[in-house]
């Protein structure tokens, strides 16, 4: 039981960190036509891909 609570706490904390707050315009902005859809999750994923690509070149 305690484990589940801890896990929920962790997930909730990360949710607030990753999915809320002000998005700074121009940071990972994706648009469909003229409608700006902003999110930042992709930044994190792309940064990770980059790290893998660089380390696999060594």
């Amino acid at each position, binding site marked *: 039981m305690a484990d589940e609570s801890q896990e929920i706490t962790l997930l909730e904390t*990360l949710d*607030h960190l990753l999915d809320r*707050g002000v998005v*700074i315009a121009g*940071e990972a902005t994706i648009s469909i036509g003229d409608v700006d859809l902003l999110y930042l999750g992709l930044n994190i994923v792309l*940064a990770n891909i980059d790290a893998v690509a*660089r380390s696999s070149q060594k």
Partner: protein
Amino acid sequence: MKWVVIGAHLKREDVEPIANVIPIGDLFLSAVPIDDDRPLGDRDLLMQVADVRAKLLDRATFVAIRYGFAVRDAAEATSKCGGLTTRWRALIEAHRDEVEMTLKIAAAAPTARPNRHDFSSGAEYMRALHASAHTADVDPSFRDGVERALVPLTTQHRWMHRDRSSMELAMLVRRRDLEKILDAGEKLRKEFAAVPFLLSGPWPLEVFADDHQQ
């Protein structure tokens, strides 16, 4: 070396020595330094930032900036956020004494997702997706219970539908009322033992700081 930005604060002493300060206009960004090649998705880094965020909130209320925004220096920070400082200052000053709380309620069963093959126009599909996202399947007596027990303790509140399987209530609460909210939450937990819900906080200004989160 780059700086992962956490939030926008009114005073330098709201940030130091918990985090580093990047001044922008007459406000102060909080930030933590990381190596250039450190991925932002590093779990340890996320936990570190989450921890710093919580400590900063203990000090004073601030505008939360979504994780992932990183800058090299004050010049870059100013060029990207300079235009927002007036709005941020107004927000922090208006809610200096408040924090955000969040209530998430899981639906009993998620509504069915529309099948795109059933639709001939983008607009019809979009509207169907939107309608299905508004799940009606959240226990209405629980929702009433929340309106009675929690909402009166808030200065502002906003019900939101984030997806097909849950609903959410974002609340602004005065710091001195935090205990009462938590007590009310405990009572709700006992009264509605079978309803899956999550009351969390305190948080910095997140929903109430971002227009796009309407």
